[in-house]
């Protein structure tokens, strides 16, 4: 703990150049728009929808969200002038994707996702989308630094606007997916109660809420507090 505090003091030099609120707004907003368009508009354009064709719709969403997130967070990373070369950021981000997919799919199974093979493709697609929303930004910005990952995902203590921009939407997506599972056992017999549709909606909703909160915080919090926020 003491080490971490020391690190914080050291980091302050780097963190003084937080990504500007405007940059955060535009880039994160871009991610949100990409997700909404990817889940809703593009499939509709091709005559698909998430309820009837979950796999195809998630593919559309991925095709749009993945590049947007990569570009947005890499740009954010560049703005905050971190010391790693860009290609390593993108490289580690892309490397993290399959790993994150597997971990999230396993987590879904632990929460009771259907284990039968006919759902395997859906589960993997959903996990891939989740991993793009949750793991990819963190991997781009944090690289493979275990203490940072631990601080953000175990302690929930982001430092600075950039880490908040990773942490809050990621938690939002996870909690949203968790809440999205609630209506699944109900006997309303609606098609959207199928796994993983309601969870996808929940995750998207939670992600958008998280984005909004992180952007708002960037506007609202005074500059000097930003770097010390726990």
């Amino acid at each position: 703990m003491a080490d971490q505090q020391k690190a914080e003091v050291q980091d302050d030099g780097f963190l003084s150049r937080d990504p500007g609120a405007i940059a955060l707004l535009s880039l994160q907003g871009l991610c949100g728009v990409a997700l909404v368009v990817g889940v809703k508009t593009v499939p509709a354009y091709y005559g698909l929808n998430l309820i009837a064709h979950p796999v195809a719709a998630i593919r559309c969403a991925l095709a749009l969200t993945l590049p947007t997130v990569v570009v947005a967070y890499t740009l954010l990373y560049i703005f905050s002038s971190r010391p790693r070369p860009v290609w390593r950021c993108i490289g580690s981000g892309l490397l993290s994707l399959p790993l994150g997919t597997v971990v999230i799919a396993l987590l879904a199974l632990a929460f009771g996702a259907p284990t039968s093979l006919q759902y395997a493709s859906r589960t993997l697609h959903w996990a891939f989308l989740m991993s793009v929303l949750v793991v990819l930004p963190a991997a781009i910005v944090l690289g493979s630094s275990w203490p940072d990952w631990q601080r953000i995902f175990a302690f929930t203590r982001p430092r600075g606007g950039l880490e908040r921009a990773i942490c809050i939407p990621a938690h939002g997506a996870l909690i949203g997916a968790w809440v999205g599972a609630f209506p699944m056992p109900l006997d309303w017999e609606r098609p959207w109660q199928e796994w993983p549709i309601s969870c996808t909606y929940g995750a998207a909703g939670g992600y958008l809420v998280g984005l909004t909160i992180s952007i708002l915080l960037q506007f609202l919090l005074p500059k000097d507090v930003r770097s010390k926020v726990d």
Partner: protein
Amino acid sequence: MMEGDARCRLVALFCYILCLHSLAIFFFTSGFLLTRTELPEFSTCSDIAKSPCFGETMDFSGTVSSEKVTGNCDDIVGDKAFCSQNGTIPEPTGGGGSEDKLSKECWTKPAIKRAVIIIIDALRFDFVAPSSSFPGESQPWMDKLQVLQQLSREENCSARIFKFVADPPTTTLQRLKGLTTGGLPTFVDIGHSFGAPAIVEDNLINQLVRAGKKVRMMGDDTWMKLFPSHFSVAHPFDSFNVKDLHTVDDGVIREIFPALLETDWNVLIGHFLGVDHVGHIFGVESPLMVEKLEQYNRVIEEIVAVLKNQSGPGGLHEDTMLLVLGDHGQTLNGDHGGGTSEEVETALFALSMRESPGRLPLDLQSSTCTISTEVKAGRSQCITTFPQLDFASTMAALLGVPFPFGSVGRVNTELYALAASTWPLPSEVGHLSEALVPVWLERFNHVLCMNSWQVKRYLDAYTASSIRGFPSAEFAHVQSLYDKAQTSPHFLHTDHPRLKRNDSGSDLSKFNEYSSETVTRLIDSIQSNLVYLLAAADLARTQWTQFEDEWMVIGLILLVTSMVIHGVALSRAMRLTQRILLSEDRDSEVQNRLHELFPLRRMLLACGGVAVTAGVIWGLQMTIRWLKSPLAAAISHGQTNIIITALILIASVVAYVMPIYGVGQVQSDQSVLGRGQTIGTSSQDQWTCVKSYMAVLSVGLHACGLLSNSYILSEGQVVCFLLATSGILYLRQAIQSGCKVPQAILFLILNAGMASVGLFEIFKDPATIASSSLIDDYVPASYSLQQFVTLACAALITTVLPLFSLARLILRRARTILRLQSLYWATAVTIPLAYSLLVIHWFTMDLVSSMVVEIPQSVKEFSRLLCPQLVYLVSLMLLIFTIISMTLNARGNVSTSYRDHLVEGIVSMLAGISGTIILLLGRKGPTIVLLAVLEVWCLLDLQGVEDLNQRKKEADKGLDHQDEHLNGRSLGSYFGAAVDWNLVAVQLFFCTGHRCTFDGLHYTAAFVGFDEFYFYRQGALLAADTFGSSHILPVIGLPLLVTAAAVAQSNPSFSDGSFFSLEVAKVYLCYGLVRTILTAVTTVCVTLQRRHLMVWGLFAPKYVFDALGLLVIDGFIVIAAIFYFSLFSRKARLKMQ
């Protein structure tokens, strides 16, 4: 001394909670699960003389002379012989004949001589009714009983289809009871399904036997349970085994055709079970259902053919009626028991062998027509509704026996008209077809008059004798309807003869007197009787299918107040802990607080005060009767005891909750509290907050889920989901502290494993294999070698491997945990023995069923019966040995700490019980128990992480290290742990294949190791299977949470016996609180949803399971508390020495 006192008070507290819960559940249950007092009276032939239906003349009916009979014949026996009086019409039989009839027949004249009753279990209405009467497409299972539809279409006068509407609960036993008694069996009767539920009330079968008629039965053996000695000939077939589709049906078909040609019966009952069983196993939509229905179609066709052959004049079946009926319906999944229209609606088909000559007047016909189908040839086929309630009365009227005493049904107009003999013979009415209807109407009116009288007699008798009579306002209304109905026949009876006397010139003119005016009057009279009977049935239905709201409210209030008790006791225990830790002079300081833990004297005083006051008021009221208010009337109406009990209980609760101590004490209390709280808050970790919030949230979600039927149905998944959430929090916390991450991940994996293990069905239940009749159905005659090898491998992996690793795990841990040499060796010997016996038992059963190797009978019997019995014996011996050696042998090594001693006891007890539990759980048992043991180990191990984190954090903050151990574990962390523990317990309940329904009980488990049925022994085994793994084991193992925390804290206070028992009590209180919250929510939900369609199918069983589970848990908490606390006291005394 003080420590002993503390423990006594703690045990007394648990006893008090148990008592409170049992009374709460008693109150709620008696308001919710409706009960009905069964009256022992029987109807007899001579009873009817007391009815007003015969006027005054019936007083001498027994000894009437021929003249008097003829003189009053029209009045007396309007429906019997309809003897034409005044000597105008020649009587073929003469006076003697009519007297003979009077003595032979009682109540009504038999309209049919014989009845063939074919009962098809779980016959849906749409199996019988034409598919055109249902909207939408014709389903595959419709129109398969063509013969019934054809008969009802072609022979419109002698065959009819009715929509037969049952009352819930729609289980076979209850329905048979309802069909034969004409009453409304209540839900409580379901509890008797496991025992022998012979009907004690008056019923149709009993009346038939009394009247000297012979009843033959074949089919479902439920009949034999209900009527053990009534049938002249019975061919019962086992209905126990749901997977057996054909035995019962084949048996009935084999027996019924010879029986049809015999003469020595009056009523023949054939009960087919196939449809019910197909529904239960495969569902209605399966092709097997169609096959079954087609089979029945053929059988009924043949039966009709046989009957028709013999139905000529003078033939065997001239006056026979064929009835094909269902006892209840079923849903598309084959479930029944509830009150949905699918389950309630079944069909009744009636075929009279002789065509009745007349038609009902349209007034009576149209009022009952509910579904008109297919206008064919200008004639619409009309299907009317026939409540099952009416079956007993109608059949009694048709067969000419007294109506069962407790019947509240009415004689069905259409079915009564269907029997040809209820109509006057053409010769009697002088071939005047227009006279048929009035004569019939008069007869029917007379029957209804008797019916009304009998129902009124029953209602009066019931009001007089039962504890809870009918609500007075409604009862008075129904009585007024009766009076109204009774005035009209008197009018008729007094008026009619006068009319006749005036114009008795010729028979022709006599029949002409049945003018349209008379017919209208008769119809009016019939209608008013029907209205009365309908109102009476509705009254009975509201009484026996409606709830006693006040009792439910009392029960709910008690349950909620018990939650308050839990909370207050917990907070007092927390304060007491702090007090013990903070004060140097423990003995004197703590003494006062101890009283607060369970202030027996104060509570006794309060209870006594209330009791005395109530007694005085009651006594005054009894002696002086000065309280004439309605309240006093309600109180004095036999409910005094209950109200006083409730008052006393509430007084005790209030006395417990209200602290009454001096000002000084309060101040000192607050100062200490303040000190304690500062430490408490300072040492309270952020994580503990998150965890305890999550625990509250998790209980809240779980509880909210219980309000919806869908979440109750999928409670297993809900619990898995919540446990996974909890596991994520543990993982997060383990990552924070950087240790025990593997345990957290393993916990998540095991959780998923537990959830999915319930889905796989690798092996059949051993008990189903054990009953040898099944083998033909379910196991192919012999396996090929390859199959056999695969199966053997599967058996090795699923049975031997888990058992072996479990035994290894227990023995390895036992070496370090069990310090007592004797205990260690006892465990080391018995566990492998018990497990190897299990393996022998299962493998022999497998070999027997696979028929690869011929097994000698003696070996088979040994492994089938003796092995399980040995396992039970070994478990019991180890358990007793543990208890004895734990309580006696503690002096062997005083140096062991309380913690080790406690762990020793718990582990060896759990190990002892494990053999029995695994055996009862069946083939999945070993896997599930292994997974559960590992999961619990992870959970316990993770408990320590929190304290590790806490200490780390405090070190960071630079807090005084000394202060830290002064605080026991915070309330939040205990609550969190208890919530997780409860989730694991509930998960165990579901993953061991249990469901909260009565047909989800593992009846087969009751017969593992035994063939004969003894109620208590088999009941105990069933209870051990149902509650063992999910209620009893968790309660026994719960103190492990304390010991796990003790390891992590290495707290010096834990060497103090009193402190330790307080901690154990806190854990038990937390666990009890969680269970009480869930049960209270279930109860609230049942109260809210008591009008829900699924109340009997889903909510009521859930409530029964939860309430029983709560009582089991409370009871075992008391037992475990006594045992564990006695361990501490023994140790303390030894130490003092």
